[in-house]
Structures are given as C-alpha cells and as structure tokens.
C-alpha cells in the first residue's frame, strides 16, 4: 500500500496536471482575426461526420485566408466537441462563446444538439449557422419564428422524404415498403414525413424497424423483410452502418432483389465497394455528393482530396460552403459586427455550387435536394428538386 508521502505526491501531481491543462487552455486568438467556432461531433458514434465537417470548414478558411482574408482579416477556427449529445453540445457552445470569444458558430450535425444550442446562441447574441441538421423544427422556430440568430444553410427533411418517395413510386413503381432506419431523431422524423406522403402515392409500409447506433446483427430483421414481400427498404440511417446491413443482405439473400431508398451515404465509394450487389439500384436524396457536376463543386472535391487524401462527404461540403457564405456576408456587411452580419445574411444572394442561395423569413436557405440512383456501381444523378416549406401557423 502507498505510504502517506506517496499519497501526498499523487495529490500534488494531480493538482499540477489539472492546473497545467487549465493554463494551456487559454487560447489567444490572432489580433483582429474573425473568430469562428465549429461545434460538431468529434467523438462518439457520429465522429465521422464531425471530422469531415471540421476539415471542410478548415479548407474553406484556408482558401479565404490565402486570398487575403475577409476584409483584410483572417478567419480563425476553434472547434468544440458536441459528442452528438445535446448536453455536450451546449457545454461546447458556451465554452466557445465565453472562453474563446467567438462571434460566429457553425454547428451541429445532429438536430437535437442544434435545437439545444439555439437558446444559448440567442441569449448571447451569437450568430448560429447550421450547416447539416435536417430537422425542420430548427427553422420553424427561427427568424420570425423566434430565434433571430439562427440561420440554416441546408435543406430540410420535409423536402427529402417527398422527393425520395415520389421517385420510388413514379419511376420505379414501388408500392410496398419496409422501413429500416436509425433510431434517432433523424431516422424517425424522416420516416414520419415519408408516411405522411405515402398514401398520396398509393404506397404502404409492411414492416417498420429502427436500429440503434452500434447495432450489428440485422439478420433477423432482414429475413423478416425478405419474407414480407416488400419491394424496397426505406432507410434513413448512419453511414457506418450501411456497409454492415448491405453485407448481411447478401447473407440473407436480399441483395439485388430489393433496393434501398432514402439516405445513408449510399453514394460513398467505400460503401458501394463493401457490397456492390446490395447497393445496386439504391435511390438516395442527398444535399450533395462528390459527383455533382458543377465546376465549383468539382474543384472543391479535388482540393479536398489533394489536402486530406480522402474523398469529401456531404458534411465536408456543406461546412465548406457555409464558411464561404459567412465570409461573403461579412464582406457584404462591411464589418464583422454580429448584428450587421446577421442582417447581411438575411438579404444575401450567394452563388453556391448548388445554385443561388437566399434565406426566407425563417432564416432557412432555399436549397435543392439531389436525387441519385446507384447504377453499375456509380451514382447517377437524376435531378435536383426544391420544395416550398409550409410553415405551421403560429
């Protein structure tokens, strides 16, 4: 057992480590830099999205800074880890606002985290730009809906579900569906919207299942789906789980017989490679994909690949685009004053790789969803669709 002297040494050591960590944490921003905070899941089950988001943002900041900065000032990015949970997201947001003194925050990926961050940003008068959450509620309550400091530069799920089911019913002729989506706000809300539109396309849901993050055994469910007579699987899920499900579809004998429709990074190369037969014919509605045929987008893909040696995903792109959007707004406002930038944003006409972006009175960007189908192992783009959002009456 330890002697009393050892115990004291241990306590003192812990204290010193604690002080050391606290002091090195004092981040000094460059003089006059525009301070931007990025809140994303850097750890936990969604860490893949966070890592891509941060890299996309950093690439954009680098491009802007190399071109002389915004109004002569450089952009300094500080990141905060939300771990995909509302609590940590709020903590990270507060830290960015109080300690790192950021003026603008881009975050989060998960809708439930973003919803929790909104009041914090509102109270502090910090501009919250959301680049990747799809829950419509975020902007139902923004702009004239309440939270004046929240803006979203990403299409909502309301649009996505409609686009997917319309294609599946009209172009592929499906009427019988099975649901296998992730058991989160994202997965459930997307399915809820799908069910809203289904009757209009004479479709019905035969079985409905949700999987937890980290679930690895889908054999039972897939066998059930196989025997149910469904023609397609509605899947709004996690990028990391799709290869597992695809592989097990092969095992159960579903691959090539029933396509996946929805959104779970079907178009990512490595996912397709994991089980090409299972993903053939998959239908996906995404905010963006690397194969999008616009010069600015392709240039971004090249630059990202050159810098990080990995093809960017959807989240990398939207964060990259949003940082550029913010920079344009600051330029238009002529200063980095938060209120002026906010007003500039609401009036902005921004030329993005997906078309011109404007914000409606709920601070929601008008953006299309891209519909794609996997043909011969490659995503084939079928079109880009926009929809007007019907806001609930107050």
């Amino acid at each position, binding site marked *: *057992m*330890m002697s009393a002297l050892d*115990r004291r040494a*241990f*306590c003192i050591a812990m204290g010193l480590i*604690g002080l050391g*960590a*606290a002091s090195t*944490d004092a981040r000094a921003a460059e003089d006059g830099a525009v301070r931007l905070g990025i809140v994303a899941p850097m*750890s936990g089950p969604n860490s893949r999205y966070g890592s891509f988001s941060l890299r996309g943002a950093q690439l954009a900041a680098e491009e802007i800074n190399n071109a002389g900065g915004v109004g002569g000032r450089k952009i300094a990015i500080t990141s905060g*880890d939300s*771990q995909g*949970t*509302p*609590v*940590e997201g*709020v*903590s*990270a947001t*507060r*830290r960015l*606002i*109080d*300690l790192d003194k950021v003026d603008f925050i881009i975050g989060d990926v998960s*809708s*439930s985290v973003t*919803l*929790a961050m909104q*009041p914090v940003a509102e*109270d502090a008068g910090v501009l919250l730009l959301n680049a990747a959450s799809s*829950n419509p*509620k975020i902007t139902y*309550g923004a702009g004239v809906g309440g939270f004046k400091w929240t803006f979203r530069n990403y299409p909502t799920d309301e649009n996505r579900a409609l686009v997917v089911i319309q294609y599946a019913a009209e172009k592929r002729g499906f009427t019988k569906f099975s649901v296998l989506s992730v*058991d*989160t*706000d994202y*997965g*459930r*809300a997307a399915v809820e919207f799908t069910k809203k539109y289904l009757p209009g396309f004479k479709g019905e849901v035969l079985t409905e299942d949700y999987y*937890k993050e980290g679930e690895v055994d889908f054999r039972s469910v897939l066998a059930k789906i196989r025997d149910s007579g469904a023609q397609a699987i509605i899947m709004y899920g996690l990028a990391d789980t799709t290869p597992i499900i695809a592989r097990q579809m092969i095992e159960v004998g579903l691959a090539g017989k029933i396509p996946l429709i929805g959104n779970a990074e079907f178009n990512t190369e490595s996912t397709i490679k994991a089980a090409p037969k299972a993903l053939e014919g998959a239908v996906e509605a995404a905010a963006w994909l690397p194969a999008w045929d616009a010069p600015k987008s392709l240039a971004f893909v090249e630059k990202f690949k050159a810098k990080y040696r990995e093809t960017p995903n959807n989240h990398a792109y939207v964060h990259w685009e949003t940082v550029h959007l913010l920079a344009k707004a600051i330029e238009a406002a002529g200063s980095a004053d938060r209120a002026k930038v906010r007003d500039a944003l609401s009036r902005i006409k921004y030329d993005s790789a997906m078309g011109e972006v404007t914000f409606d009175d709920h601070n929601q960007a008008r953006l299309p969803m891209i519909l794609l189908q996997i043909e011969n192992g490659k995503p084939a783009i079928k079109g880009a669709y926009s929809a007007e959002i019907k806001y609930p009456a107050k």
Partner: protein
Amino acid sequence: MSPRDLSLPAPRWDLRLPFGIALAAAACLAPLFLGNYALHAIIIALIFLLPAHGLNLLVGYTGLLSLAQAAFFGIGAYTSALMAVHFGTPFYLNLIAAGAVAGAIALPLGIPALRLRATSFVMCTLGFVIIGQAIAKNWIGLTRGDMGLSGIPKPYFALGPASFTISGTTSFYYLVLVIAVIATLAANLIVRSAAGRNMVAIRENETLAESVGIPTWRYKLVVFMISAVFAGLGGSVYAHYLTVVSPLTFQMYYSTTMLIIVLGGGAGTISGVVFGSLLFVGLSEALRVAPEVRMIAYGLCLLALVFWFPKGFAPLIDRFWSFLKERK
C-alpha cells in the same frame, strides 16, 4: 529570543466561522469575478450535487452500492420536461413533481431490488438505468423518443405582484445555489438525526442492527426512495437548465460520475460530497480536455479511489477543518 516568548502559549483562533462566512461570500459574489463559462461549470457541479447527496445516503451511510441514480435523475428530468411542455406549469411545481414522481417510482422498484444480495442488487440497479433509457427511446408517444423534448421554458416565478424569469447564466447560478444549499441542509439534517445513526448502524453490521431492533428493511427502502427524490430534483433542474431532454439523460456515465463524486469526496460525509462535486464535475467541465482524456482520468480516479484512497478526500477535509479550529 527573550524569556517572555517562551513562556506564553501560542494564541489559538477558531477560524471556522470566518472561513464559513468567507466561503458564503465567495459563493454569492462569484458572478462578479467569474466568467459565464466558469459559472456554467459550477452550475453543472451543483446540479450533480443533488443526486450525489442521495447516493451518499445510500452508499455512504447505509452501505448500499447503487447505480440507479441516473435512472431517477432521468425520470425527474422527463417529468419536469413533460409537465413544462404539455401543461406549462411553473418551475417550482415541476421541481416538486419531479422529486415526488422519482420517489414514487422508487418504491415498487426498491421492494424487489432490496431483497437481492450485494452483487445482484448492483446489477438490478444498473438494469433500471438501461430499462429507463429503453423506455425513453421507445415510448415515442410520451417522450418523443430520440427526438427528445425541447423548448422547456425558463423557470418563471410569480410571487404576488412581482414576477421574474430566470434567464441568463448568472440568475440561474443563484437559483441553483439556493436549491443546492437547501438540499445540503436537508441531507445534513437527515444524517445528524437518529435515523442517520441507524443508517450507519445498518452499514456497519446489518445483522447486529436488526437484532437491536432497527427495522433494517424499512430503512433501506426509505433511504432508497429518498435518494431517488434527490436524484429526481437534480434531474428537474438539469432539464430546465439545458431546455432539452433526450434518452441520453439515462446513461451509465452519470451514475459513474455520481459515484466518483461520492467516493472521491468521501462517502459518509456531507462536506466531502460537496467538495467532490465541485472538484470532479466542476473541474472536468472547466478543463474540457478531450472527452477521452476526461474519461481516462475518471477511470484512473476510480482505481485510485478503490485501492489507495478508500475514504476519498474526506480525511483531508477533516484535517483542514480541525486545522482551522485549532489553528495549530
């Protein structure tokens, strides 16, 4: 070195009262010299202090290791959230309801659970947390599952003509401070009463306690329920502070955190728990190093606590206190 110096004894001052006053003053004036982020860390520490007091009563005084605090914390949080969102009830009503519901649910859970032996009891309490999370995730009609309940309104008080809303970190800090102080006083009262002594008797030797006439079974059940009430209160404040609850409120990590607070601060002492809460929660919030590093530190702390510091910081606090008293 004159002879006079050697003959007079050194003066002794009782510094406890001045120290206590200084501490209270620091607590009240904290918002003036601490930034919002530090206040946030303290608020979280004080929120976790509530279930920690409950756990202390269970582990420190009655000798029952329970992992269920996170379950009652979550129940309290959801109760408050549901009431606030669906009925628009004022904060103090939500607070009381949260504690009451948590305590009420603890009764049917505790009766079968307390019959189990030590190891199985721990498993069972863990089961409460896991089942709690599953219910929160799957009973979509009630809890909206993973989508969570958001938009919990800020606490609003209407006292006669005056009414004010708690908004902003500073006012929330004072609110939580008041609640935490009341809870600590309550815990202190329980512990110093005859009931508290009986609890210690049960911890030391249950059979002997039974033989001198202490109804051990009833005590264990009541303490289990009271600790659930504390946890529920904590959950309620938590819900109102974050304005969002999700099934993630039921996680093992919270149970582990509360365990570290109690064991690290010193199970079986009230001041130890307060100290432990500020140290472990406040510090880990304030440091905000990578979460993995934080968890590794937690793990190492647990190991150190189990093998080298079974009494946690309590002995140090005791020494400091008697130092103040005697000024030796």
